[in-house]
């Protein structure tokens, strides 16, 4: 997504976008990308405004298009219901494809792991350095930090623990993380 589209999207969030740029956005080739960005921003904005809406998965594009074309909203709802009905009948075919895919991949993976535990170990050993190498290049050793830096690290740990101590619904684990962060490092 280029800068101009991103700009349009963000002004849409502020209700400031003009029609032309909205149309351009809607005709962007990668609607998946556009929708993803919109949803991420929307989620964050909802949170800022404390409106938790379960609507994050609703396709906004269709609604906006309908509004631009001057169609009443109800009509687009009707079409989407009809489409839902139709797609329910088509669904088994899609499901079959999905099953084939999943079975194809899933069976292979499961079988590998069970039959050859040794090979799985090697695989995961390979994966680990691949995953952590680029990060390890710039490990921050705690002993290299001075007091002020250590305290800043602790502060981050604390605030993070605090965000999901009670909130994460993990009860005691959350508290424990909190206390652990508050204590020595």
């Amino acid at each position: 997504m280029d800068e101009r589209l991103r700009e349009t999207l963000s002004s849409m969030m502020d209700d400031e976008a003009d029609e032309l740029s909205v149309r351009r956005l809607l005709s962007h080739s990668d609607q998946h990308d556009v929708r993803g960005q919109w949803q991420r921003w929307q989620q964050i904005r909802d949170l800022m405004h404390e409106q938790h809406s379960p609507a994050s998965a609703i396709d906004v594009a269709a609604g906006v298009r309908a509004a631009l074309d001057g169609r009443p909203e109800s009509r687009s709802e009707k079409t989407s219901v009809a489409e839902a009905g139709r797609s329910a009948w088509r669904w088994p075919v899609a499901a079959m494809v999905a099953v084939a895919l999943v079975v194809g991949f899933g069976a292979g993976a499961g079988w590998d792991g069970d039959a050859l535990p040794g090979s799985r170990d090697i695989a995961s050993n390979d994966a680990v350095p691949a995953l952590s190498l680029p990060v390890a290049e710039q490990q921050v050793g705690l002993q290299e930090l001075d007091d002020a830096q250590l305290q800043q690290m602790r502060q981050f740990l604390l605030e993070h623990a605090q965000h999901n101590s009670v909130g994460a619904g993990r009860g005691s684990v959350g508290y424990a993380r909190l206390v652990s962060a508050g204590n020595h490092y």
Partner: protein
Amino acid sequence: MTFRCKRRHWPALLLACLLLGAMSASARGAAELPAGDSLAMEWLERLGPALNMTSYRGVFIYARGDQVHSMRIAHRYKNGRVEERLVMQDGGNGEIVRKGMDVVCVLPDRGRVRLDEVIPSGPFAEAFSSQLVPVGRWYRPTLAGQDRVAGYDVAIVSLEARDSHRYSHRLWLEKETGLLVKSQVRGPGEEVLEHFQFTDLEITGDISDDELEIRSQGREIKRKLDHGEPRASAVARMNGWTLDWQPEGFVPAAAPRSGKGKAVAFSDGLAAFSVFVEPMGRLKMPSGASRVGATTIFLREVSVNERPFLIAVVGEIPPATARKVADSVRIDERLALEWVGS
């Protein structure tokens, strides 16, 4: 006639239904729950209510990296209200008492750490639960067996990460109540990164009032959990920065107020990470990753309009994920300007 007609169609209909059912079941099963592990999911569904609605007392240990802590806890669910008291068993003597949404912390001042920051201060309690996160989509739940923990029979639920963006979890749930009595966060090589476990536990409805009273001397700090200060909603749109990428399944779960910067916490239902974006002050921080058990801190410095900013990603996620998140933070130029002014 009609009857016969119907009957003749029955087998076909039945077959179609069965096929459909089988297909939908296997589609769902294969995509989310491997056969037979809906049981594990049922256990998980009990976990949330059990954490709050079970009354118990005990001592648990918590270990990450080379740190081990133990705490004594009394937890009571009475008249629809959660009351609990936690007392630190080592280090300085502090305690946390919660009655419904009121939290009081008594913590010894340890000098270097500002302990009033320890208190859960935001409207977080409901933030996570209001998001119905389909844990099964990001973790593969399986019933991994049975065991005994702190004298209670438990079921072991394994939640294996479906991708490399998150860690795997293993939960030990008490069979009668579903209470979490032990848990582990595991890395890709099955190594245990974080460990929580009750060593002494009594599940009982008989918890007296004075077990829930503060007894330590010290500075008391009180907070309410449900009401945060009204947020300046217009504080630069989207908090002044956005994420271009976040690991699938993680949704914004809380927008805590950070000291000077702007932070948002994300959760996938099990794991969480927080993203801090702050103007770099006089204190310079190094760039890179640091790990304590399952918790990663990734720091990165960026410049926007020649203003240095510090991006910190902290959470129970692998270093590579934290790094990717940190790399995808985009800071609004407007925000940069705002901070220059302040």
